[in-house]
């Protein structure tokens, strides 16, 4: 049986990648907190994970033409959505700074959790390889 490092690491590498992606989107929301007309965005993390799981189960599709829609686990920006504002602002900006900051912090904690899992996997593989 061939050893596949990709499979050994499981879903955690995709989760970590998703957390990084989400951190970027949230950081962008916060940077644009004072930009008139800016619409806050976020990533549908669950949809992203479902896609990653589909890709891992072996039923993922391959792109035969570059203008076909991307169905890879970490696809294009199809998971990127606009947030529904709960308070209208005069200049059309929908960034709620407090909420975005909370989400960013929460995302950073989730990132840490994903990292712990991934680190556990890596140390497990290392132990197996060294025969301890």
């Amino acid at each position: 049986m061939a050893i596949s490092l990709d499979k050994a690491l499981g879903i955690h590498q995709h989760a970590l990648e998703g957390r990084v992606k989400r951190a970027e989107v949230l950081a962008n929301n916060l940077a644009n907190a004072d930009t008139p007309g800016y619409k806050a965005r976020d990533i549908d993390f669950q949809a992203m994970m479902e896609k990653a799981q589909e890709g891992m189960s072996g039923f993922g599709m391959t792109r035969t033409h570059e203008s076909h829609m991307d169905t890879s686990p970490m696809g294009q920006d199809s998971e990127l959505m606009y947030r529904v504002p709960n308070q209208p602002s005069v200049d059309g900006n929908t960034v709620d700074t407090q909420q975005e900051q909370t989400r960013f912090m929460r995302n950073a904690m989730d990132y840490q959790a994903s990292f712990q899992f991934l680190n556990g996997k890596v140390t497990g593989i290392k132990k197996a390889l060294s025969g301890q």
Partner: protein
Amino acid sequence: MSLGSIFDIAGSGMTAQSLRLNTTASNIANAETASSSTEQTYRARKPVFAAIQQSMLNPSQQGQAFGSEEGPGAGVRVEGIVESDAELQMRFQPDHPAANEEGYVFYPNVNVVEEMADMMSSSRSFQMNVDIMNSAKSMMQRILTLGQQ
């Protein structure tokens, strides 16, 4: 798309906010600069912010059928600085050296209270971007320790 781009995003936010702080400082410093004509009088300056789209940074991606406009943003930029067209303050001060023939002096349309509020808002936003950068830094440092005991 990586942690590294968070530094660019937060950095662009810090640049924009410090420019906003600069214009506020200029406005408050000139709040009492009197002159004898409407043309020469200082007018309050305000920066105009606009979001940077990712497609602007990577022109090669622009031709893509999907997601060229819909991509995640890449921070904020200052599109320009505009002068406020609010009415100037006209005061009757015949003794003032800059008074015109009718004895009027023009003062800038700077609202000091508004500027102070703007100053607090921009310094808070700056601080927030610094916090984001710090978080991204610790996230990045953590990934470097992957696989270590």
